[in-house]
């Protein structure tokens, strides 16, 4: 449902013109502060994103005490790292194990733990994912190159309320002795949504 990037020489599209027109109108009326728009976009480009979630997961992998805290009192554990707001205070952490794999979707709109993962990727908000994830999670995961055996239970979490779900992926083998900072590189955003497992050390830069 997304459109291709426009050629730089092409005239602006209708939607670009309409959006510009509305923004100037709202600025003229005093309802929107242009500097606030720029500040918000700059935060999203440079600071907000899945790195917060990565830090939470890597700490849980590296520190068993923090992991127990994260599973028992996710909001306390996450707040201790400074990440709060926009339902970031109503988080439930779902632990992947040898027996259970978790996958998160929002079939009705696009609910997602913004403070931990940033804005959701396009595919997460798209009709194909929202339609299929609840009915055929294994089939969806195959489209990400992930295969979950029938012996593992797949749990799909449909975010229909203001609760927000974060998957705690399994720590991959081969990263024994890695420190928290090194482990962060193995935590992908997709593994915290649950469409993939965390990366294995062989497929990433060895620290």
């Amino acid at each position: 449902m997304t459109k291709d990037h426009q050629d730089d020489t092409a005239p602006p599209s209708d939607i670009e013109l309409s959006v510009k027109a509305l923004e100037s109108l709202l600025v003229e009326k005093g309802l929107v502060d242009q500097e606030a728009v720029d500040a918000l976009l700059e935060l999203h480009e440079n600071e907000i994103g899945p790195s917060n979630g990565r830090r939470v997961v890597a700490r849980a992998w590296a520190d068993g005490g923090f992991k127990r805290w994260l599973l028992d009192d996710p909001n306390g554990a996450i707040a201790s790292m400074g990440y709060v707001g926009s339902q970031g205070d109503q988080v439930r952490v779902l632990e992947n194990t040898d027996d259970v794999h978790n996958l998160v979707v929002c079939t009705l709109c696009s609910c997602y733990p913004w403070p931990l993962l940033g804005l959701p990727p396009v595919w997460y908000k798209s009709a194909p994912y929202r339609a299929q994830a609840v009915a055929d999670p294994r089939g969806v995961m195959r489209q990400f190159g992930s295969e979950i055996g029938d012996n593992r239970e797949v749990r799909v979490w449909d975010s229909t309320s203001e609760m927000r779900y974060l998957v705690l992926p399994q720590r991959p083998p081969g990263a024994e002795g890695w420190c928290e900072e090194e482990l962060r590189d193995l935590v992908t955003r997709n593994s915290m949504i649950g469409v993939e497992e965390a990366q294995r050390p062989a497929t990433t830069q060895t620290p």
Partner: protein
Amino acid sequence: MNGVHDLGGMQGFGPVRPEPESEEPVFHEEWEGRVYAMVRLIGGLALWNLDMVRHARESLPPADYIAYSYYEIWFAALRKQLVESGLVTEDELRTGRASSAVSGAILERVMRAEQVRAKPFMTTSYRRPAPGPARFVPGDRVRARNRHPRGHTREPRYVRGHVGTIDAHYGSQVFPDLSADGVVEGCHLYCVRFAARALWGESANVNSAVYVDLWEDYLEAAP
């Protein structure tokens, strides 16, 4: 409402087509970021709540909702809400020029850059006092009621009429069906586990389950 936004279990949309995670920009087009920012900043005026925003989006004409990209849906719903709330007139939308004044009380709430930097996300709490004791506890069998409200609801069609088990009680939280009409009241919220086969029949993998957050008014006791 039984709208096209209620996508769970629908077929025919094709494959998921993920972009490689490392190559994905925050916004694919500049205008998408501007729409996102306008929605967030106008939302910060607190003239409407999140359920009203969701309802504005899901009540767009169904063909538009399906054809639009994500931020086109946001943009169309924002325009609708600006006019419905009286912040902007149809005439202003058409000409792009301001011809009506905004009240001082609203202008005082306009979000500034320093506020955005200090608090990039809203910190609204959705917890509200309970209307009474919780009817269900974890382990109880419940049926999602076969409701078809014309207004906003967060009970997806694919669970209606089906039996599941209470997984967790999340306390009393804002009830979205009323909140979309501006009535903010608490209702017990539960996470309900449904076996995949209960929802999707025999073709579903036997070792799968779907967990859905459902308010007490959506549920009835099941034998």
